[in-house]
């Protein structure tokens, strides 16, 4: 037999338990079954130990195990999960293809060197899947189809495979059985022409692709531009603090996703859902794009503490959809030591990291508006001569404007009306006008002000910035603190 396409090495991940595992990512000791039309089609091992069999009715299963948890089969979600798993497997090779309903095929020939052998890859996949809460049978072979067969049967010798394990239609299997043919070797011994006449060309095509006589092009997944992962809880979670563990798992998953693609994010969203209530979402915004799981967890916890209007949760989803490429910042040989920047400041990368970290933490707890920087604005009106900036860029120095007139350290958010007492300007005591006026007449396009500003001294000698408007009313506008 000619084997043309045998230089490849394919690893197949077969998720036998996927219909159940999409619901039971959390470990459970309860029997869980998945059914269609009141007939059980899949179950976890606890259920099978209880004596429940595939094909039996749900009622019968409830009699065997009263604490049974039943889910209707959700093939849409299975496919969705399989796609996510394919994205996860992307960290091992760029060539991942999905084979519905429950398998992934990885072309790992080119990754062997990177991971230093197939053994390492297998170990990493097993460990990774365990963390994610899934289990898969692994099969390794030279063609995608053979790898799938190996994963399903757990048998590394392809030729001994029984025909009923092959990925072919049931009537062909029956036909082969009637002919007294039970293993793949027997099939291959038969003349191909006869088989084609009896079972159709598609069967021969399958055999050729299985044995590597014919090319078997795969459609590889493309990079998914978004991340989304969901955990379903078997029983309702009423204590939000206990969500920390599933959150940690989801964030770990997110970070694996980011690291595999060399990406960072500055925004991600959690969604707490319950079948009986409308879902509640909360988002985490970061000052700078990051890919640090510990940081994400800290911020998520801070946000979680603030939520008090959610009583029950039965599923938790993490999603992120805006990504930034990692700037490949090479490690600092003298990490943590201070060095002089071009503008004469001493700084270190650690400072910058700490600063971003602080900013993120403050915003997570206090809300995005509670924390801001200041900048000068180009306007002569005192209340418009400044502005808040969301986060001031480090190291960007502003030109010092040269205003020779005195300006107070504190500005009142709103000018405060002052009265006259006995011919004195009065604010908790008499004010004595010292300097002025400085006339500010500006802003016809917006709202015009025409004010005369003075420096005034309080009787106990605090200094204030006051003005008189055109209606001769006096206001306090600033404090020379």
């Amino acid at each position, binding site marked *: 037999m000619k084997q043309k396409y045998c230089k490849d090495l394919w690893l197949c991940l077969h998720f036998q338990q996927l219909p159940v595992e999409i619901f039971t990512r959390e470990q459970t000791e309860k029997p869980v079954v998945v059914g269609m039309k009141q007939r059980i089609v899949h179950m976890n091992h606890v259920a099978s130990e209880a004596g429940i069999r595939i094909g039996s009715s749900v009622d019968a299963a409830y009699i065997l195990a009263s604490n049974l948890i039943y889910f209707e089969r959700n093939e849409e979600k299975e496919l969705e999960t399989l796609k996510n798993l394919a994205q996860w497997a992307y960290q091992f090779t760029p060539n991942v293809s999905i084979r519905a309903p429950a398998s992934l095929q990885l072309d790992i020939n080119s990754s062997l060197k990177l991971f230093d052998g197939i053994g390492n890859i297998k170990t990493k996949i097993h460990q990774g899947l365990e963390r994610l809460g899934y289990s898969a049978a692994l099969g390794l072979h030279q063609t995608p189809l053979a790898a799938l067969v190996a994963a399903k049967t757990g048998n590394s010798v392809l030729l001994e495979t029984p025909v009923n394990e092959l990925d072919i239609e049931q009537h062909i299997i029956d036909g082969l059985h009637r002919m007294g043919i039970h293993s793949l070797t027997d099939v291959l011994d038969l003349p191909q022409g006869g088989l084609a006449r009896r079972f159709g060309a598609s069967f021969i095509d399958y055999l050729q692709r299985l044995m590597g006589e014919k090319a078997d092009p795969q459609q590889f997944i493309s990079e998914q531009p978004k991340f989304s992962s969901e955990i379903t809880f078997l029983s309702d979670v009423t204590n939000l603090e206990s969500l920390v563990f599933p959150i940690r798992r989801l964030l770990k998953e997110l970070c694996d996703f980011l690291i595999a693609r060399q990406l960072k994010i500055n925004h991600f969203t959690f969604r707490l859902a319950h079948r009986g209530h409308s879902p509640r979402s909360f988002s985490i915004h970061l000052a700078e794009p990051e890919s640090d799981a510990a940081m994400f967890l800290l911020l998520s916890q801070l946000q979680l503490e603030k939520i008090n209007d959610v009583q029950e949760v039965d599923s938790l989803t993490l999603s992120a959809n805006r990504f930034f490429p990692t700037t490949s910042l090479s490690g600092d040989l003298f990490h943590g030591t201070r060095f002089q920047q071009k503008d004469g400041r001493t700084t270190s990368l650690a400072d910058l990291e700490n600063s971003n970290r602080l900013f993120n933490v*403050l915003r997570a707890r206090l809300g995005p508006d509670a924390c801001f920087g200041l900048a000068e604005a180009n306007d002569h009106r005192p209340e418009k001569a400044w502005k808040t900036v969301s986060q001031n860029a480090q190291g960007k120095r502003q030109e010092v404007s040269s205003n020779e007139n*005195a300006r107070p350290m504190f*500005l009142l958010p709103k000018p405060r009306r002052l009265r006259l007492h006995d*011919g004195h300007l009065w604010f908790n005591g008499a004010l004595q006008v*010292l*300097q002025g006026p400085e006339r500010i007449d500006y802003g016809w396009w917006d709202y015009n002000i025409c004010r005369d500003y003075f*420096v005034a001294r309080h009787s106990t*000698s605090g200094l204030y910035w006051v003005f008189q408007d055109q209606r001769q009313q006096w206001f306090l506008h*600033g404090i020379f*603190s």
Partner: protein
Amino acid sequence: MGDLESLMKKSGLWRASSIDCEFRQGLPSGFPLLDNHLPGSGWPVDGVTELLHDQYGIGELRLLSPALARLSQEQSRRILLVSPPFIPYPPALQACGVDLSTLLIVQPKSDQDILWVLEQALGSKSCSAVLAWPQTILDKQIRRLQIASKEGNTWNILFRKTNVRSSPAELRIHLSAGNAPLSFHSAINVKILKRRGGWESTTFRVDFDDNLNQQTPDFSELFVNPPVNNNETKILQRPVALPSFPATAG
């Protein structure tokens, strides 16, 4: 006296005032007189400093501004202002030389949050100075801030009312208005209540390098016969002979 000197050399005694001072160089305050009174000849670079004052507008921020300007220019670490009572006015800060890009304002909603912010900021090592105007703060909370600020190498300044008799803060300074009617400069009265290696100081006056306290010619007629008009409008139309403003030096 000679005996005392030799005794001190021999027996390993030392004066309390010399503890730390040589080793912990302070941050120059910009006011030589104040530097002389402060341990380490300047503001501390970490620990809690309490500024006690009852009135705004006596120069409590201007007293700090040279040091803050220096910190903002020399370090890329942040200067945090936590719940300031009014808007810290950027044009004035800029004029003092404070680099606005290092400044960060935080406005927590509750006292509890203020303390949380302080502890986070002090411990984060990413701030050179943290200024806060807490409403109420307990001694044990100040002790925690003291530890956090030492750990984070951050100077923490708390503005408090003068009725606080004692506190665990490392440096406590009482501030009161010091503008003398006849002085050209504005000034502030400073009394150090507590410092390392020294006793309570006497009250001394620190002069600012400005001309805020300078009086331009008589404004008294502005307020004679208040509500009506003739006088006031006349004054405002009159070209007032202003002494030219010297550019704010320093």
